[in-house]
């Protein structure tokens, strides 16, 4: 765990307490059972926004607290632990795009609403089942955006989309010319294909040529932070299970082969946490963000993959049942592994940044 300042510790403790008491995995199960494509609890999200979480990276002048990414990362990690379904990450990322690339007018219009929870926003970047920000075809002509976006997360609840077009990022409000088709993935969250058909689009013109890259860096790190919470819980749950389950008259935790596997996972988890925290810190400090973001997400992908598989295996049969939570983490894990770049994608980018 990174060394935190007092504000961050309070935030973390608050998030942990709320997630544990008010938003345990049973809450996600209710969302899932409802079958609603929006797939989150509006009342819960309103509470989060009241606690200031939707505005953590938003400047104070626009109604946020400006605590930075390390802080929102702490909250996201805690929410990841209990699989809390919410548009918090999506809205934060959209807000970061507006902060980095928006005009004063755009900021004044949207940031206060996002901070207060009055509006929900999300990114609409990729156009196929693989992350491919270099292959964007959606285009804008005369202020109207046309194109197809695929598997947009938190699309159903969003009032605002930050959309990647061939010449930059645009703000598009839900409504005319925006049609959603639900895509139900293993994680049972909100995903949709979106057809933009001459939708009114307002360019984020102040972010420079690498605005999309900067936003994607943030997307990678925050997603990794959610995965960190998930991996931590899978590890903790598995350890606790091994300590209580008896086989052949011994608790499983006394079997050395399992001990050594847990030691490996412990070391992996340590690396994952270091990488994610370094990514969050890099965004806040502004130094070496792209590389740090790649390392964060690539390590999150690697460790979450191993952890989810080992978690299932070490639980034995019970982990295979829907009644037990661990399978829910596995099914969310693969979706997040694919989001904003698989390990293969990220390695390629890392090498490119390294000039080899």
């Amino acid at each position, binding site marked *: 765990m990174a060394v935190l300042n007092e504000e961050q510790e309070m935030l973390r403790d608050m998030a942990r307490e709320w997630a544990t008491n008010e938003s345990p995995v049973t809450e996600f199960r209710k969302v899932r059972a409802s079958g609603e494509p929006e797939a989150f609890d509006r009342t819960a999200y309103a509470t989060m926004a009241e606690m200031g979480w939707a505005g953590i990276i938003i400047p104070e002048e626009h109604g946020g607290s400006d605590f930075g990414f390390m802080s929102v990362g702490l909250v996201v990690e805690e929410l990841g632990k209990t699989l809390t379904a919410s548009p918090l990450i999506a809205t934060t990322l959209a807000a970061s795009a507006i902060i980095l690339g928006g005009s004063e007018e755009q900021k004044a219009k949207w940031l206060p609403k996002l901070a207060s929870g009055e509006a929900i926003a999300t990114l609409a970047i990729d156009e*196929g*089942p*693989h992350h491919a920000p270099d292959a964007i075809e959606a285009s804008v002509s005369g202020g109207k955006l046309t194109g197809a976006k*695929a*598997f947009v997360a938190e699309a159903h609840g969003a009032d605002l989309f930050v959309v990647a077009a061939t010449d930059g990022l645009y703000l598009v409000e839900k409504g005319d010319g925006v049609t959603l*088709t*639900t*895509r*139900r*993935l*293993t*994680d*049972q969250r909100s*995903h949709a*294909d979106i057809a933009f058909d001459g939708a009114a689009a307002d360019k984020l013109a102040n972010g420079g040529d690498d605005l999309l890259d900067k936003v994607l860096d943030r997307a990678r790190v925050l997603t990794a932070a959610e995965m960190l919470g998930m991996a931590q819980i899978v590890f903790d749950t598995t350890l606790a299970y091994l300590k209580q*389950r*008896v*086989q*052949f008259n011994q608790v499983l935790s006394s079997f050395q*082969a*399992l001990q050594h596997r847990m030691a490996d996972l412990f070391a992996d988890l340590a690396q994952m946490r270091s990488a994610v925290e370094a990514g969050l810190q890099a965004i806040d400090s502004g130094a070496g963000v792209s590389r740090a973001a790649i390392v964060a997400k690539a390590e999150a992908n690697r460790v979450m*993959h191993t952890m989810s*598989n080992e978690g*299932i*295996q070490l639980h*034995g*049969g019970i*982990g*295979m*049942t*829907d*009644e037990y939570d661990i*399978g*829910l983490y*596995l*099914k969310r894990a*693969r*979706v997040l*592994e*694919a989001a904003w770049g*698989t390990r*293969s994608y990220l*390695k*390629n980018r890392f090498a490119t940044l390294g000039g080899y």
Partner: protein
Amino acid sequence: MATQLEPEARDSVDVFREEVRQFIAENFPAELKGKGLSMAGAEGSAKETPAQKAWREAMGERGWGTPTWPKEYGGGGLNRKQAAILNEELARAGAYNPIGGMGVMMFGPTLLEYGSEAQKQEHIPPICRGEIRWCQGYSEPNAGSDLANLQTMAEDKGDHYLVNGQKTWTSGGQWADKCFAIVRTDRSDKHKGISFLLIDMDSPGVEVRPITMISGTSPFCETFFTDVKVPKENLVGEEGQGWTIGKRLLQHERTNLSGAAPGGRSGASLADIAKKYGRTNKDGTLADPVLRDRIADFEIRWTSFLHTARRAVEESKAQGGVSEISSALKKLGTKLGQERAELTIEIMGLQGLGWEGDNFSPVELQGVRAWLYGKATTIYGGSTEIQNNVIAKRVLGMLDHQ
């Protein structure tokens, strides 16, 4: 090596092949062509179309669903060569063997070995006709890999046993007619206190509760026995012989499981999937060289696994016993199957992670289920950890320190 058959043998082979072709032509309904029965054993339900029923009955009458079983109990009575021809011709016609499940794969061979004449006469023919579904009553909630630690009690009441207890992971328990179970008849000895019992699933006191799996399906149940009366003639072998019989049955299970990791042998090759879901060069090769390398990496190891499985069979035949490398097949095959499933969903991207909806193809949705359900392959039928213990201790002689 090619084997030259004597002329008359070749004749009889040709005659048999002709007989099979004619049978298929006359009995196999065209609408079932190419459908097969994928995953029928573990995940199928009990529904049957009229065409499926007709095909099952036709095959069952001939005994060709259990081609090498003795004719006197309703089997096909075929030799290996004939059984191979039958398989070839079924495949050629796009047909399939409609008789399967645990009765065929595990229970039947075990009962043929250990059952009384009366038991064989009673239970084998309905299996051969595919009329009776069997389920397995082995695992209990507190006896995962430590199977012998079972607590379900069968109390001797003179002409019957009174069974009380709980089983779990009862495959297809909700559809099964009968259950072969290992139960405790003696508390004083962990292994020698176990007996092998056949229980009617519609007996009073049997209650079944399906378990939903992470894949969303319910192929298994929890099964509760409350004062269930089981006639004494349903004891297989002797009292206390249940562990021996039960382990023998598991050998049949393992033989069936090692190559059967879901996703491990589906139709399309990984390269074909990658070509379909990813970019290709002008010459048709994969545009992503790293993915290409990973696919080749997998396929090379998969090829050497197939060589190993074949070698295990050859060695076992030659030595007249079980080859020691057989002990490694289950862990190798199931791990590779899981790896293949993971690679497949990665190749497909988010399109490979669909849960439901028209915008995913049936193959895609089935792939997701197979990926998730496949996580069980390294757990059931002797987990990989148990396999490792067995290899280390029995094959490598790394005995526990006394």
